[in-house]
């Protein structure tokens, strides 16, 4: 059995964009669901009880994110929600995908359309280039498009101008799929208010358990399933629904309110002020654009992100760089490359405050980060 790493340091968890700590309400809801014996598809009373829990969760999620209950498809997570949108809505359409979209979107787009996927560029501040999008949409005699833009970027927290993008899509008969995995719970997110056609959510990024996500669909859209199975989720996603994870997702969504997340912005600002005071050479990537309240992408010139992430981890501070790869390696960030950072794309870390962050964790980060920078400067001297 793994013994677990000897922890000489207090844990300072600042990697919420990888996964949020479990919210107590989500934990309670999940545990309660574990004790329901029934399968939501069963005809008997136990099945009906399970079904009741499932449909209640569906209604909660629908209400919380501007969808109708019939338009909520529970999936295994954000990746599957994105894949279902791309496969189910993208067939036969031109795929226009934002340059800084999550790998789960890019991989699904490539699986659907191969090299025919078109990149929607971002500006240097990280926001989607709407003029470029308009030009791509206006291409004459092209088949209708499916546009994929994330609500908030996972690495920089930069928010895309989705209302404008949605209007452009409508004007050109294009569908808009929004990956709202990072934005949900942190800034207002509503399928209806955005005017989007589909929207992907992830339970654990809301503070729920890992293992459930959802694709929200506007009325009238009915994507073919990736997994037909037993016809669950109105035939759009086969397989017995993971009730504990879904109940946890719904409970987390009810707790993850943007009004509460706004308090994180003050902590984030304190953190960024501290970084600037410690290191005039450091840069906050994406600071010129509207951002999530919890995310800082901090660039320390000349120091590989990998070194920074490891050095901080060894002092008990958990941050990340780039999108987490399943092997755990730290790779250069395509997101930052798309923003035109060049070689510096490999020198930034992501600090993302969890919903329960307090001032102490910011101070611990600044102490560890400052000490790391000092040591590296002495080494380089």
């Amino acid at each position, binding site marked *: 059995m*793994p*013994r*677990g*790493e*000897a922890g000489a340091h207090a844990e300072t968890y600042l990697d919420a964009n990888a996964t949020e700590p479990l919210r107590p309400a989500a934990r309670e809801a999940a545990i309660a669901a574990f004790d329901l014996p029934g399968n939501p598809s069963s005809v008997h009373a136990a099945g009906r009880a399970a079904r009741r829990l499932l449909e209640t969760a569906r209604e909660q999620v629908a209400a919380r994110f501007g969808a109708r209950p019939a338009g909520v498809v529970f999936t295994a997570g954000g990746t599957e929600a994105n894949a279902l949108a791309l496969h189910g809505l993208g067939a036969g359409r031109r795929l226009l995908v934002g340059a800084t979209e999550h790998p789960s979107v890019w991989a699904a787009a490539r699986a659907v359309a191969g090299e025919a996927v078109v990149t929607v560029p971002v500006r240097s501040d990280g926001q989607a280039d709407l003029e470029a999008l308009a030009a791509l949409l206006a291409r004459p005699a092209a088949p209708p498009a499916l546009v994929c833009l994330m609500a908030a970027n996972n690495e920089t927290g930069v928010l895309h101008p989705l209302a404008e993008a949605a209007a452009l899509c409508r004007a050109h008969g294009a569908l808009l799929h929004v990956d709202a995995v990072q934005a949900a719970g942190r800034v207002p997110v509503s399928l209806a208010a955005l005017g989007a056609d589909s929207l992907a959510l992830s339970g654990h990024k809301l503070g729920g358990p890992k293992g459930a996500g959802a694709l929200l669909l506007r009325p009238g859209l009915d994507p073919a399933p990736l997994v037909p199975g037993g016809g669950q989720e109105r035939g759009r996603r086969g397989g017995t629904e993971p009730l504990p994870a879904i109940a946890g997702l719904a409970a987390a969504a009810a707790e993850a309110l943007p009004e509460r997340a706004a308090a994180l912005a003050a902590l984030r600002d304190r953190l960024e002020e501290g970084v600037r005071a410690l290191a005039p050479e450091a840069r906050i990537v994406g600071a010129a654009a509207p951002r999530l309240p919890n995310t800082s992408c901090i660039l320390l010139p000349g*120091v590989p992100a*990998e*070194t920074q992430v*490891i*050095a901080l*981890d*060894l002092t008990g501070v958990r941050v990340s760089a780039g999108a987490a*790869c*399943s*092997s*755990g*390696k*730290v*790779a250069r960030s395509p997101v930052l490359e798309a923003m035109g950072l060049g070689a510096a794309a490999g020198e930034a870390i992501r600090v993302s405050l969890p919903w329960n962050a307090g001032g102490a964790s910011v101070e611990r980060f600044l102490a560890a980060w400052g000490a790391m920078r000092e*040591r*590296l400067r002495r*080494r380089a001297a």
Partner: protein
Amino acid sequence: MRILVAMSGGVDSSVAAGLLAEQGHEVIGATLQLYDHGAATGARKGACCAGQDIHDARRVADALGIPHYVLDREERFRRAVIEDFADTYARGETPIPCVRCNQTVKFRDLVGLARDLGCEALATGHYARRVEGPDGPELHRAADPARDQSYFLFATTREQLAFCRFPLGEFASKAAVRAEAARLGLPVAEKPDSQDICFVPRGNYHELVERLRPETGAPGEIVHALEGRVLGTHRGIARYTVGQGRGLGAAARQGEERLFVAGIDAGRRRILVAPRGALPRREVVAGEVNWLCAPPAAPLACTVKLRAREAPQPALAHWDGAALRLMLETPGIAAPGQAAVLYDGERVLGGGFIRAAQAGAEAPRRAVA
């Protein structure tokens, strides 16, 4: 002290990490991802990302309760090792990628990372010994001559050596190392030894070389080195190394006499062949020399290894500040591109990469000469 351990996922580096952790050091495990495992094994290209070895290294680190990191060095490895591998073949030489990897990705880069992380040492699972001498640390052969890897470490600089630790150097045998792995409860105790070149898992290295340097796959003539006659054609120079007897087809023998590769003329895409007795040379020149002792001002009597699997032979080394000229007591076969490593008994004195014999210098001779 805080020590970074380069963990490959194999038994050796796992035991190295385990022993240091057991001694109470703060051990940090690092595994280099050097190439796309999916592409290298012909499985799913671009599969993200880790091969079985990285998985194993992580399991070992878990078992030891130490932090572990996977370091993406694909680009660095491709430029510093794989392309050098292909370029060396394209020059008509035989590369030695493990030395290039040790020189660049392993010791130079990992020592730098270790220092950045506040480590006081870098440890690897190499079979070699680092011995404190009167003038600082010395590199010595491993206690187990069958496992000794000191040949591949000759290019380690003295500064790097001072920072490095080789916990397996004193082990009497691989069996003893496996026993340690079992005692430490490491999940790789029974794992087979790695084979061949890590980035060419099935051994078809010339296919890789031909992909990177297509000219190495072009056919050319097999020519008798002494008589100048064309004896046949070959399917690309990357398939040959000096001293090789296979792959020559009908040119492999002349009457009763077997012929071997005596030289590779990359410019004319020619493989030169000669009888075995004509191959050994008395003089060998090496470049890119690294000294692990004070560079000798006068001719130095030592022993020298011209290939990984041979016993060191007596020689006299002449160093002029740029090139290393070795006069072998008994003529030996030297393949350009391989390493010439100098020893004083157990100690590695230094070494360099064997250069092709200069035209007009020593031609292949008859054994009776």
